[in-house]
């Protein structure tokens, strides 16, 4: 019995970041009242016709470029015919045999040795509406706001070999698309959706065995979990010689139960009866047009990571954390330009700034605020721990550190004269500790430091205190 390997391919739908829908001028804004973003075209009234949004073509081409694809200069739309209540025209305008992009790849991270996962194709299509199934009534409601929102569908080659690789792929993909401003890729808002196809085979084989489609994974973590579970399920069947029980089906990931379940199998497979969309002429993209789009691609994550490690001497690990989110990366660079201290800046970004993003939707402090805070700490005006307090306050106000330090009375006491007085006072009050120290009990030093800090309500500059204390004790 040979060892087995997992074969995974992903199908990702990404909502393009356009202002209006793909075939009409309705807004794509998320969260509006039901059926507010609608018109005769996107609800498929009799007689209406589609007109293609130019930005959809641009962004689809751009996506192909950042994913190293071949851009198909001649490509066209097709109708995919089926009935479903969220599909107003009973067909979806998509691309069948001539998609806009093909044959590309995306590189995974360092822990996967930069492995290239092949991208079979990227095509343009329109989204369907949304169905709301009422719990306590036999009623379904249809909201067409999402109908006609532009999507690209990205299909990977079955090159992925583990749930971890799949997870990394999704993270890298999201970064690429967010950096190049193609989509905001928010799974929680549905602007990125992922389905997976997974099968098992013996290592060394190049045959593809029966694959199972997994749907309903609503976050990258869920994709990871679902794939692990399904992989386990299939492996077990192989181990018991029951691999014939793996049927080509669609299974739904049930996050609550933590496993995949068979979806209601429809008796007949869909016959989509694809044919070329007669209402839209095929797209013929000129070389110049494609080149111009390429020029608009900003610095991509990998390039940025290299530049950060090279120019700022950041570690690979730190750089990877910073570039994971574009706004964070931008913030970091702004900060460094102001502080001229990459190490200090990266520390603050990786710790306090990233932590704040757990509470706030956006980075709650400005780079100017943080730059000045770092300056104050470095100058000794406040201690590092006081600095953290100031940071927390800065999250809720535009005020500058200098004012907040004043307000909160956090100014560090660094004057040697002032501190000498207190050091002397503490020393005189704690003769026992001094004796202990002289007898080699080093812990007493910490105790004395503590007392001094307590006396100054934490405001004493610890560095100065330490120096004074050491000097005094030497003298004793």
């Amino acid at each position, binding site marked *: 019995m040979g060892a087995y390997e997992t074969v995974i391919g992903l199908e990702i739908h990404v909502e393009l970041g356009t202002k209006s829908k793909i075939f009409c001028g309705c807004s794509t804004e998320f969260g509006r009242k*039901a059926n507010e973003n609608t018109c*005769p075209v996107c*609800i498929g*009234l009799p007689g209406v016709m589609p*007109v293609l949004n130019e930005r959809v073509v641009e962004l689809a081409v751009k996506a192909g470029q950042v994913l190293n694809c071949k851009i198909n200069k001649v490509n066209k739309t097709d109708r995919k015919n089926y009935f479903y209540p969220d599909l107003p025209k009973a067909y979806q305008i998509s691309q069948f045999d001539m998609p806009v992009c093909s044959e590309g790849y995306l590189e995974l991270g360092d822990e996967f040795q930069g492995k290239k996962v092949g991208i079979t194709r990227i095509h343009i299509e329109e989204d369907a509406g949304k169905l709301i199934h009422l719990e306590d009534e036999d009623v379904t409601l249809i909201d067409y706001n999402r109908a006609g929102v532009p999507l690209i569908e990205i299909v990977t080659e079955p090159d992925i070999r583990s749930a971890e690789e799949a997870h990394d792929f999704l993270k890298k993909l999201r970064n690429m698309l967010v950096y190049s401003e193609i989509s905001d890729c928010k799974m929680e808002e549905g602007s990125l959706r992922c389905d997976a196809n997974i099968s098992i085979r013996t290592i060394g084989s190049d045959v593809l065995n029966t694959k199972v489609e997994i749907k309903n994974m609503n976050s990258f973590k869920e994709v990871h979990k679902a794939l692990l579970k399904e992989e386990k399920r299939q492996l077990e069947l192989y181990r018991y010689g029951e691999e014939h029980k793996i049927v080509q089906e669609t299974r739904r990931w049930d996050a609550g139960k933590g496993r995949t379940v068979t979806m209601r199998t429809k008796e007949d497979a869909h016959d989509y009866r694809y044919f070329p969309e007669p209402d839209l002429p095929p797209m013929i993209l000129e070389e110049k047009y494609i080149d111009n789009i390429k020029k608009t691609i900003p610095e991509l994550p990998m390039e940025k990571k290299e530049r950060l490690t090279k120019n700022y001497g950041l570690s690979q690990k730190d750089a990877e954390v910073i570039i994971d989110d574009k706004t964070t990366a931008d913030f970091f660079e702004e900060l460094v330009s102001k502080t001229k201290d990459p190490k200090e800046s990266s520390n603050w970004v990786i710790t306090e700034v990233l932590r704040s993003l757990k509470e706030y939707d956006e980075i709650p402090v400005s780079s100017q605020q943080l730059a000045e805070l770092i300056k104050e700490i470095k100058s000794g005006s406040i201690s590092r721990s006081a600095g953290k307090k100031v940071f927390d306050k800065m999250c809720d106000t535009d005020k500058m550190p200098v004012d907040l330090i004043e307000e909160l009375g956090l100014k560090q006491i660094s004057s040697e004269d002032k501190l000498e007085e207190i050091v002397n006072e503490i020393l005189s009050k704690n003769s026992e500790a001094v004796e202990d120290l002289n007898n080699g009990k080093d812990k007493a030093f910490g105790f004395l430091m503590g007392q001094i800090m307590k006396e100054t309500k934490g405001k004493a500059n610890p560095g100065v205190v330490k120096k004074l204390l050491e000097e005094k004790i030497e003298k004793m």
Partner: protein
Amino acid sequence: MKVSREEVEYIAKLANLKFSPNEMDKLLKEFESILDHFENLKKEDLEGFDMYSFDEKSLRIRKDEVVDFENREKLFSNVKKMRDNCIEIPKVVD
């Protein structure tokens, strides 16, 4: 061109249409006669011709601008049942 009843029933399902047994009999006959006529296609010499001819140079596109439909209240005026601004239908099981 002979067509089986199962095939026609399958097509009816795809098209969401229902036929009574009599109607189905009639339809089968008609299909056959029409499909017989379609055999003409087989006789044609189509060498050198392709389904697509990409000769339009320009890209038919529109600007990415939001344009609200001015008559929105009337969009759903033909719908039988509305609830909370949505169209109401019997529950659909996924």
